[in-house]
């Protein structure tokens, strides 16, 4: 009796998880921290949704009128960084490199990166402020229904 009850419980929990807790629209979630490199970039398919999550960082200026102003300015800078990361992930980055060689020796090496994009529907999920560094976690979901309403 106990064994059959346990067996029923084991069978019920995955069924509940699959049936009730999952939404109809499949979501491919991928956290782009920029350092782990484990996430394979998913391809957006019809009926699917890709959620891109980034963490923007901003620093408070050394001279501020109040801690509140320091927080506000650090959050602004973190938001800018977050939006840049979203634009980088979604649209891509233009990279331009320039090396100067003089007398067969490398004298100067410069790399320029630039991003320009129009972002719609990005959300701030979480904000943390610690020791002058503000981190803003941002999320944007991409799907065909958003692009082609």
């Amino acid at each position, binding site marked *: 009796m106990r064994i059959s009850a346990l067996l029923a419980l084991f069978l019920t929990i995955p069924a509940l998880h699959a049936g009730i807790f999952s939404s109809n629209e499949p979501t491919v979630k991928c956290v782009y921290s920029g350092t782990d490199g484990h996430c394979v970039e998913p391809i957006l398919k019809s009926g699917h949704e890709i959620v891109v999550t980034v963490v923007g960082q*901003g620093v408070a200026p050394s001279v501020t009128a109040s801690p509140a102003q320091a927080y506000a300015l650090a*959050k602004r800078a973190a*938001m*800018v*960084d977050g939006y840049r990361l979203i634009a980088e992930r979604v649209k891509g980055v233009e990279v331009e490199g320039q090396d100067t060689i003089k007398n067969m020796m490398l004298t100067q090496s410069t790399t320029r990166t630039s991003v320009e994009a*129009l972002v719609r529907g990005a959300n701030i999920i979480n904000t943390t402020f610690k020791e002058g560094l503000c981190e803003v976690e941002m999320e944007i979901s991409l799907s065909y229904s958003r692009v082609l309403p």
Partner: protein
Amino acid sequence: MRSRNGNFPFLFSGFTLIFALAIKADDYYIGYRLTAKNAQAIHETLSVSKAMQPCGSLEHSAILVLNHAPDETLESVLKREETAFLEFASYQELHVKSNDRISASNTQSLNSLTLPTKCYAVEFNNESVTITATK
């Protein structure tokens, strides 16, 4: 219990009130620009201007409600609640521009966010102000 015909004047006055409130809302053009250099916000501009003629429709538009003190202008409300407004408005549309320069000796980063100047319907009440994005 009133009859349908008896309720008509009340319904009519209700619709009139809603219509009057809709008419009372003013249109404002609001734009915003933020520049950050090396992860520090260095320049911020918020421009607010009252529209000279009505603009856009309000159907299915996002709404933001902010606290409002008596005799407070929209500009001062937005400056006080700038973060809330920025989060609300940036969800609709935001332009990002970023330029980084990396060399052996130093790294420079210049990023800017621009909220394109857009028309918003603004309704002042006693203790709150309702900002609606127009389409």
